[in-house]
């Protein structure tokens, strides 16, 4: 599939901190691409560079094959951008906030009115269209920002944590809209919600220290763990003494840890779990849990706090 967005050796520094370092990435046309990473990993910076809000220090970025630095007008018109923070104008009503933004993209008044009414109906803020943003809750304001990003029906959507602060009902509506209206759009979004990322993205990039550490579909990413599973044994009273030392000696047992009354470890093969179970069978076990590695485990492993 052709790439809608291409980043080549992108670099960005802020003061003396490296935000993005030699970052290259291709985002397929009409796909949902998620970027996950720690706070300050550079997720928002990528979106801001693509939206034309900040200048990159090095590298090139293309949107539909057009360089964003030299063909700004052509690239900006196909983009819809939703920032992470609430940036609505408190001196204008919600309706005016949306109207002005749509007009900046050259959308006719009539079409804008129809789209504003449509989305306000979906997100249930129709009665608040003539209110000022300062009177509304952050959750509703986020849905209005989402509406603003999609109001001109852009080809590419850059969404910075689009569902943060929203209630579960509106979160679902956002993804439903992206599923229907956004079917023929390229969606690049950042998120801290791993369940959402697993559910709604075709491809995921894990960003760490300004570089893409892993990139691919969820199956491909989880596939690299080769069936690695996370095991948990919960004890009634406490975890037996010296258990970490004894199971640490076992082959293919990764990262044994004690969290309160729970013994946690990772392994590719179930037989090693039974080996551990034999070690602790005499203790008072209250529960056993096993789960295949998820994106969150992979992410935590990559950023160095858990499985490597």
């Amino acid at each position: 599939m052709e790439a809608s967005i291409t980043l080549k050796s992108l670099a960005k520094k802020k003061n003396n901190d490296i935000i993005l370092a030699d970052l290259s990435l291709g985002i397929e046309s009409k796909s949902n691409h998620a970027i996950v990473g720690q706070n300050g990993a550079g997720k928002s910076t990528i979106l801001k560079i693509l939206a034309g809000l900040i200048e990159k220090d090095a590298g090139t970025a293309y949107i539909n094959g057009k360089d964003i630095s030299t063909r700004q007008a052509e690239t900006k018109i196909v983009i819809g951008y939703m920032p992470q923070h609430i940036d609505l104008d408190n001196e204008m009503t919600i309706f005016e906030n949306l109207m002005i933004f749509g007009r900046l993209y050259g959308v006719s008044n009539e079409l804008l009115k129809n789209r504003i009414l449509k989305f306000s109906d979906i997100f249930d803020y129709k009665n608040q269209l003539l209110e000022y943003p300062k009177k509304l809750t952050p959750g509703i304001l986020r849905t209005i920002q989402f509406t603003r990003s999609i109001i001109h029906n852009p080809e590419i959507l850059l969404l910075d944590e689009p569902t943060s602060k929203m209630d579960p009902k509106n979160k679902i509506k956002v993804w439903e809209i992206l599923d229907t209206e956004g079917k023929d759009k390229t969606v690049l979004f950042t998120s801290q919600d791993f369940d959402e990322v697993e559910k709604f993205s075709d491809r995921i990039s894990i960003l760490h220290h300004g570089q893409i550490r892993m990139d691919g579909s969820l199956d491909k990413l989880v596939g690299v763990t080769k069936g690695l599973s996370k095991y948990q044994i919960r004890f009634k009273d406490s975890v037996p003494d010296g258990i970490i030392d004894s199971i640490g000696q076992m082959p293919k047992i990764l990262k044994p840890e004690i969290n309160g009354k729970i013994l946690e470890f990772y392994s590719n093969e179930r037989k090693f779990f039974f080996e551990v179970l034999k070690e602790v069978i005499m203790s008072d076990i209250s529960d056993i849990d096993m789960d295949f590695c998820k994106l969150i485990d992979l992410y935590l492993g990559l950023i160095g706090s858990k499985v490597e």
Partner: protein
Amino acid sequence: MNIILQREYLIFKHNIIFYLCLWTLIPMIIYLFISFPFSFYIKLPNGISYLNWSSVGNWVSASSTLSFIISMNIASKYIDENSYSRTMLCTPISNKEHLLGGLIWSLIMGFIQLIFSLAITLSFKSANLFLLDILLIIIYIIPIIILISNIGFLIGLSCKGGLIRIIISLIFFLFIYFSSGLFVPLNNGLPYIFTLSPIYLSVQNIQAIMANDSSMISSSLILVFISILFFIINLVISFKVFKS
């Protein structure tokens, strides 16, 4: 650019009472706290009334102060990372249009302030003018407003902190108010450099109109030329600032 103006108009519409108060109060405050007290101490030659003479100062200072504040406010919103103006920069509107929109809006507001100032000072009978004189005065004052709006935009774009902006504006206005002969006659002992200031020369021209003397348009043309230079500087700075 029309959309930028439309946005400013919507904001204005929601604050119309505030602006009406501002347009009325600024010339009254200048009259009450500058012109009126100074009239007891400053005596002008040839029996010219100081209140009459200082009306020029009232018109120029009121209109330029307002347009300066508005253009600075518009510009400063662009450097606030969490503002609507900042996000507007991701739309296909060019920097030039953002700049022109902001400057034209501040010029419109300054112009309305000028009309209010003229009406108020004329109602105080501190100036007796014919319609043609008023038109000529407006033509002389508009280039001053344009230049000061441009300077306001420059300060708004360049200074990040609100406090720094206030201090710079205060120094700037003290300089403009008292180095251009707006409220204190500077004919005697004025350093030569001040006489070259196009704002000073324009003010002199307006005062000449008030005294039924002849005036020269050259100073206003110089002001327009300087304004264009400032606009170019603003445009260059905007390319750097809007993407920082």
